[in-house]
Every structure is written in C-alpha cells, then in structure tokens.
C-alpha cells in the first residue's frame, strides 16, 4: 500500500502521534471537528487517537491535501470529495454555499473521511475463467456496497487482462483506478492499458472508443443516465465493457440500472460484500442472475 500520500496530508500533531507504518491495514481515517481521530481498520475495527481534532487542524489538512490549491479542486469540492495522488479518496462535510439552486462550494468544512486506496495484485486472476471464453470477453459488472473492494478488483482485472494483451481503455473520472502522475499511472494497470483521467465517464467512454480503439473499456461506478447511454454506444461498437456499481444484490441493481438489466446487457456479475472483511466474494452470476460460482460461506 502506498500510504505516503495520506501520511503527507495529516496535520503535524497527528504525524507526531503516529508512525507512517501505523497506516498499514487502515481502511479509513475519519477526522471530525471536536472529536478524536478515528482509524477504521480493514477488519472493521475502530481505533481512536487521543485528543480532539480541532478546526485549525481541519483547515491545515484541507490545505495540505489540496497541495495548498483548493481552487484547483472546485468541481470536486462541489461533489463533496476529491482524490489524492495514489487514488486515495477524501470526502468532505461542511456547509454548502448555494448559487442558482446548485452547490457552488463547501465552507466551514467540519469532517473529513480519508479512504485509503489499496492495490491487491493477483486478486483478479481467479475471476478470469468466468470472464473470458477464448477470444471473447463477457461484459462484466462488479457490484458491492461502498468500501468493499469494487475499485480494487476492477483495477486488478484491468491489469490481468492488459497483461494478456487485451487493450483496455480506462475512464478514470476521479483518478481512483489508476491516478496519473506526469502521465504515468501510479498503480499497476498493465502494459496494454490507456488511461483517460478526470473525464466524465459518459464522455470518456465515447472518446476512448474513437481515439484509442480498445478491446475493453473499464469505468468505475456507473450510475447516471449519461453513463447508461454511453454504455450502449460502447456495446454497439463491439467493445467489451467492465464496470462497477454500488449495490447489495442483483435485485438491488436491477432497479437502479433498469434498461441495461432488462436487456441483459451484462453477461457476468461479480458480487462482493464486507461480511468477512473487505472484498468478500458473494457470487459470480451469469446474465440471468444465475449463480456460476459461489463465494465461501
């Protein structure tokens, strides 16, 4: 795990009370104004640090995490989160400033949730037999509640496919799959992968399709109508699709991605949960929702 990006944004007091190695095995760091710092471990246990987190420390953290450049993250701030180098995500809570019925920015930020990104090489290998058949890739949707390893699995599947010489185009809207630094992905996504970062998924999928000629397009967290329209465009061009979506079960996403699900667009579903820790495999399903492989009980 590359936690130095997270370590660098923590205020001085916290860095003095912790060691960088203490961040190993941590899934989330929750910083709330007037409350102790809370570290959530991967096994879902919570650890509290001594002392209260002050408003000044929140300001210091926000300043550090934006590289003293909050102006560069206006759009992210409106969405309530931003992605750090290394793909770690920071969520904000505060007071919304409204303009013409839209959120202009957040002020008086009072809570931060830092989610530490993980890279688990090799996890995706086990799924390849279900997703590939000869030269054919099955359109795949990874489904799980937040924080259960969707993005981590997607990233490793991208790497596995890329290493098998499939050209994978990645639309990384929030820089969580393969954040770029000087044009180089900071996480291993394989040698045949093209990453388009910071572009809305709907536009990015179409752009990649036209510009890079991918065999497979990968995107994180489908949800909007625009995303669904772009999925159709990808499918009409004969390109494979691999995506993730928030959800607890097959029936849960059936409601949310109605047209795609009704037409049985996706041919494989990988359901994950956090029952036995992050990334617990519930099942691999086929296009009709029939179980192909079941996770360990």
């Amino acid at each position, binding site marked *: 795990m590359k936690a130095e990006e997270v370590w660098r944004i923590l205020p001085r007091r916290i860095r003095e009370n912790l060691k960088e190695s203490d961040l190993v095995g941590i899934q989330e760091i929750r910083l709330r104004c007037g409350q102790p710092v809370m570290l959530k471990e991967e096994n879902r246990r919570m650890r509290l640090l001594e002392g209260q987190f002050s408003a000044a420390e929140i300001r210091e953290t926000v300043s550090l995490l934006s590289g*003293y*450049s909050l102006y560069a993250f*206006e759009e992210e701030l409106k969405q309530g989160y931003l992605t750090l180098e290394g793909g770690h995500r920071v969520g904000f809570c505060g007071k919304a400033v409204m303009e013409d019925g839209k959120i202009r920015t957040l002020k008086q930020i009072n809570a931060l949730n830092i989610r530490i990104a993980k890279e688990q090489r090799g996890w995706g290998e086990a799924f390849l037999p279900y997703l590939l058949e000869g030269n054919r890739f099955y359109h795949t949707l990874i489904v799980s509640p937040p924080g259960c390893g969707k993005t981590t699995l997607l990233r490793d599947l991208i790497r596995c496919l890329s290493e098998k010489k499939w050209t994978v185009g990645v639309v990384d809207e929030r820089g969580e799959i393969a954040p770029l630094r000087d044009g180089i992905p900071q996480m291993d996504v394989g040698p045949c992968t093209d990453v388009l970062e910071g572009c809305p998924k709907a536009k990015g999928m179409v752009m990649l399709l036209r510009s890079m000629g991918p065999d497979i397009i990968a995107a994180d967290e489908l949800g909007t109508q625009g995303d669904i329209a772009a999925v159709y465009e990808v499918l009409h061009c004969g390109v494979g699709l691999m995506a993730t979506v928030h959800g607890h079960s097959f029936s849960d996403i059936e409601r949310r991605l109605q047209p795609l699900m009704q037409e049985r667009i996706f041919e494989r579903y990988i359901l994950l949960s956090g029952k036995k820790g992050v990334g617990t495999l519930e099942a691999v399903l086929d296009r009709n929702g029939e179980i192909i492989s079941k996770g360990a009980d």
Partner: protein
Amino acid sequence: MMRILGSILILGSSLWFGISFALKEKYRLEELEELERGLLYLQGQIQYLSAPLAEALESVGWKAEGQVGRIFQQTAVKIAERQAETAEQVWQEVWQNEAVHTFFTGEDLDAVLVFGRSLGYLDKAQQENSIRLLLRYIDGALTRGRKRLEKNGRLYCGVSGLSGLLIVVTLL
C-alpha cells in the same frame, strides 16, 4: 606616471558607479518583465488547466528565466514537499531568502509578498484577481522605471563621469 594612473582609476571608478546605478535599474526592469511573464503563465495554468500550485509553479519555473525562474522552481519544490501550513509561508520564505540575489526594490518585494497571502486561497476567480492585482503593480512599476531609466540613465553616467573629472582636476 602615478598621477595618470590615479586619474584613470578615479575616472574609471566614478564612471562605473554611474553605469552600475543605471544598470541596476535596467536589470530590475528586466526582472519585473520576467515576473510579469511568469505571472501570465501562472494565470493560464490556473485558469485553463486548473493546475495545482506545485504543478503550475513548476511549469512557470521552466518557462521563466533567470533568478525569477529559479524562485518559481524553488517555490514549486517546497510546495510539493507540503511541510508548511500554508502556501503563503512557502512563498514568503523563498522570496525572503532569494530577494538578495535579485534587483527588486523593497516596494517590489512588498507587492510580491502581499500577493502570496492569497496564493492557493479560495477559488480560481480569487487567484486570478490577485494575479491581476500584482500585474497591475508591475505594469505601473515598469512604466515608471522605463521613464526614469530613459530620463536618468545617461544623466547617471554623465554626472558620475564629470564628478570623477572634477575630483581628478581638483587633486591635480
């Protein structure tokens, strides 16, 4: 022989005094122009690329020349290190350390440090406004400086040369 040598030395040093006075102003204007160019690049980086400060200042550092370019580069490195609490602290530290190697006046330095107060603060509009404010100062300083140099440049050389001559004549 000694008298001639002494006279040449006095004349030469007084002339050098006048020339260096004019050159100081000329170099200051050149540095102000470089700073102006750098700020325009910075404005573009922020406005069109939404580049964070470290990235924006690094690009400016590569484009701007001389000491001003080095100052931008150093600021970029220190901002990327994230050791200070605010960007203002980094900006102040670098400029105060490096100002001795520049020809900027105290007034120039004050304007630059005031600009640092809003560096990275709030939104893009705020950044552009503060860049514009510093650009306006630089513009005024350049206009005044150019006029002064045009008017006084030759005067400095002439007066210093004549003063040297006067000293030589008096001593002889």
